[in-house]
């Protein structure tokens, strides 16, 4: 599978990462090489193999619905680059 500059630019947008032109150039060629290497997997017949998304046989871990301790608003906001009152602040969302 080939990956071109346009695809990388599109995927970077999906990942919300702004790339400089030089980065875009370099990344496209590196990702092209990496995907070429990854394509080795297509030589295997995996039609009847079940996927493993989790290695141990556990599922649906539930806990009792009991109130516990959580962070206070002040504590939760301590690391925020910008906040006001009990809120995180961000640039304007609606024009």
């Amino acid at each position, binding site marked *: *599978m080939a990956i071109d500059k346009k695809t990388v630019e599109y995927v970077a947008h*999906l990942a*919300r*990462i702004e790339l*400089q032109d030089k980065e875009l150039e370099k990344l496209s060629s590196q990702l092209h090489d990496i995907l070429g290497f990854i394509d*080795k997997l297509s030589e295997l017949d995996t039609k009847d*193999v079940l996927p*493993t998304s989790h290695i141990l046989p556990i599922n649906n871990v539930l806990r009792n619905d009991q109130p516990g301790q959580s962070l206070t608003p002040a504590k939760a906001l301590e690391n925020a680059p910008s906040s006001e009152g009990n809120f995180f602040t*961000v640039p304007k969302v609606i024009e």
Partner: protein
Amino acid sequence: MELHKLTAHELIPKLETKEISAEDILQALYSRIKSIDSKVNAYVRRQNDSSFRDSPQETGTVPITIKDNICTQGLNTECCSKILGGFKPPYDATVIKKLKAAGLSIFNFKANMDEFAFGSSTENSFFGTTHNPWDLERVPGGSSGGSAACVAADEAIWALGSDTGGSIRQPASFCGVVGLKPTYGRVSRYGLIAFASSLDQIGPITKDVRDNAMLLNIISGYDALDSTSINTAVQDYTKSLTNDVKGLKIGVPKEYFVEGMDKEVEGALQEAINKLKSLGAEVKEVSLPHSKYAVPVYYIIATAEASSNLARFDGVQYGFRAQQTQNLIDMYKKTRGQGFGDEAKRRIILGTFVLSHGYYDAYYLRALKVRTLIKQDFDKVFKDFDCIIAPTAPTPAFKIGEKVSDPLKMYLSDIYTISVNLAGIPAISLPCGFTKAGLPIGMQIMSKPFAEEMIYRVAYTYEQNTDWHKSKPKI
């Protein structure tokens, strides 16, 4: 007495008889760090923190050094990334709570690492490269390079690292120390800043096998805050340090001894195998036929999970935010574009690509299926064998800068460690020799899920009958 050179099991009796105090150990470490860390750079030096000062530290018993991706309440935890600059966690990771409950003091400087644990050389740290204490022109391995280097250079008594594809074992091998990746689910991941959640495990990096078992005793166990931690009994791992491998069946995978492996590494492994045979173990060749697919599978699954986990770094809740932005989306893009390093961007974009519409089946789903085949290879071998022995890395520590411009070449340095994470099994790396140039070589011992006691038994027996772990770098 040079306390910084001792192991925890040597220090604890001295503390108990009051021959020394916890403060004595801290002072020995500070003075060691002041004299050599400007060369090794095993510890993170943050802004306004250009020199190490003896900042007041709560004294417990033996201090422990923590990798920069494990949350320590009130103590900077930045994953060695610009984007998490200044982050002081409002809570302790479960392993930190357990260490404190056991009376250990959390050392107030964190260990250097590749940004977000993305790397095999610690060259991807925002705080600069860590240097290998055995040869300062070489890498310490990664991503837990700071943790391994500070233990090797006696700048720490012991340390915690994390291992997603070899990030504890490969640096342990390059630095000549002992590092264990526990079974997936053995140690709680709560408070470990996530890279690839189905692969990540926290584990101990120590000067010898006994310290390693003692540390695993402390950090293991079920935790309701990590729903993937497993509720099985935790053994006292020090009980498996028995110096006896008679009758044990050990497999050596033929696929691991192929071209690309350094001749000196191969020779050291062969000698280690002979040593275990002479101690009474039964050693036979085994096959893990899907080994060659482990690296491609890993770079799909690990990057896919990373692209999702790292979505949280958006300039809103913590860390760095780019200035002069037009709107919310622009703020996200500029923050992440300026805040992440090259390797982080590469992995997030690759992970987003393999999950994106039209490519999911061809890449991600196929990788999950091949992961099944890799796991089945191990299941088959462990029906007849107690453990598997292999090299930890195909080469000793490489030169700084040697692989940094070729990501694919760098990824291949994890060729022997990655399968273990994909299969969820435990594995240790311990010293098994040196190259002619004096670089450490590591041997890996793997076993079935939750068979850490078997790994410690074989590792301890080998260590008791060799002297490799007693060598120290001259620095």
